């Protein structure tokens, strides 16, 4: 109660400073929020694209059925592999005709089917990295009757890079703007402490514990941070909504993340205040 009363009094005494701090925290978290939305959507898109990451092993026409069975067994036995589909030469031709209907003439006049049979290997979600894909491809290519293995190496590599850039970018920006936000809250709290240093000293002289003195400042930091977090979430949602409506549909981040962002703001405020107060209380 004492703490809340004091914290509100401090905010009332220097409202502009509080608004400034909350605004700066909001700005910092807003940037993080925007990047989170972008990364989240990138992540969703990548996951959908990665669904289609597969390895295709083309086999010779003269392969024997038991050889095929041996390859299939080995592939199915690998931990990376979710499923293996055999595509016969006939299936391949049918599929090609369907996919490329505008070039149908090309396929109809043929004496002989030019397409090879193949195994299409689906991978488990956790094993779509360039390394896993390469390992599966290598296993298949050891068999002498496997003519060629295709898996779009460049494409997989690039997907992976994009995702890594997204993750690193969010982390770096998050940390950078987080530090800025913390510095700002800490400054606001230090100013509040500085303005009341005599009072703090007097409180200590009449026997107030550090906790008693510290609590209003921590609360002030918490409220400032929380306000910043809420504002940032609102701004981020507004930005998301504008893009959703005006540019193209994107997804909103999970609600837990948004709540997490707000709480992060609050925790941040407490932490920044705690550091500012700790340093000061040691000085007195």
């Amino acid at each position, binding site marked *: 109660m*004492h703490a809340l009363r004091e914290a509100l009094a401090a905010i009332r005494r220097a409202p502009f400073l509080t608004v400034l701090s909350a605004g700066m925290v909001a700005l910092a978290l807003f940037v993080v929020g925007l990047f989170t939305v972008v990364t989240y959507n990138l992540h969703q898109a990548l996951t959908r694209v990665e669904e289609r990451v597969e390895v295709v092993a083309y086999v010779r026409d003269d392969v024997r059925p038991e050889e095929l069975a041996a390859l299939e067994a080995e592939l199915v036995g690998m931990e990376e592999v979710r499923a293996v589909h055999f595509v016969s030469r006939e299936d391949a031709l049918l599929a090609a005709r369907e996919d490329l209907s505008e070039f149908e003439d090309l396929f109809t006049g043929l004496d002989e089917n030019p397409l090879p049979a193949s195994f299409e290997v689906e991978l488990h979600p956790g094993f779509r990295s360039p390394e896993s894909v390469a390992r599966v491809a290598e296993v298949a290519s050891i068999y002498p009757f496997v003519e060629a293995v295709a898996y779009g190496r460049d494409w997989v590599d690039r997907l992976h890079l994009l995702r890594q850039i997204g993750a690193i970018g969010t982390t770096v920006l998050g940390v950078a703007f987080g530090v800025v936000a913390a510095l700002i809250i800490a400054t606001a709290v230090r100013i509040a402490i500085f303005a009341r240093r005599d009072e703090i000293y*007097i409180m200590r*002289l*009449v*026997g107030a514990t550090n906790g008693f003195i510290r609590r209003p400042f921590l609360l002030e930091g918490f409220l400032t941070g929380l306000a910043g977090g809420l504002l940032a979430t609102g701004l981020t949602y507004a930005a998301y909504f504008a893009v959703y409506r005006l540019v193209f549909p994107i997804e909103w981040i999970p609600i837990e993340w948004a709540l997490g962002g707000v709480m992060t703001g609050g925790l941040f405020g407490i932490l920044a205040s705690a550091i500012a107060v700790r340093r000061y209380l040691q000085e007195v």
Partner: protein
Amino acid sequence: MIKLTKVTKEYPPRGRALSDVSFHIRKGEFAFLTGHSGSGKSTTLRLIHMAERPSSGEVRVLGFSSELATGRDIWKLRRRVGFVFQDFRLLPGRTALENVAFALEVTGSPRRERIPRANHLLEEVGLSTKSEMSVDVLSGGERQRVAIARALVNEPLVLLADEPTGNLDERAARGVMELFLELNARGTSLLMATHELTLVRSQPDARVLELDEGRLVYDSELVREESA
């Protein structure tokens, strides 16, 4: 209760406020600390309040030693020691009542007891009509009496008073002395720094300690023992 053993307090680079001071004040004693301006009276009281630590020697108060006391011990100690500061040290921008009640809030006494108790003390020092005024607008003597009320509100075991009548007229000073004597009669030990010799002479039974340039040059107890 309060025991100083060969206490020296230095302020580097130069300046020595206390040199080798030893005395012992027992439970229930009433002691004056006198001396010229700058002789070390306030420094002695600050050391007993553990606002500072001695450069050498030991200060023991209510069982806490200056050599061992932790931060936790210090606030425990301060809740049982009242201090009337020479420069009052009131919380600015708050009323007289809030200032006195604050000392109760700090020690965690129940909410509904605070205001009546604070009001009672303000009445004792003759300020009941000014309790709702901000201490910023009170006169010098009124502030001093608020500081006295605050020091007494927790029923301290020990009362340290630094020049508590410096801003008071004779009548008000007499009132404060009566309050102190009453408190002392109920068992509180009292150490009062003052340069007003009339005040000291008015209590012939009290213990008198005199400092001069940081040295203890007179202790009525030792004189009495010697002459006995």
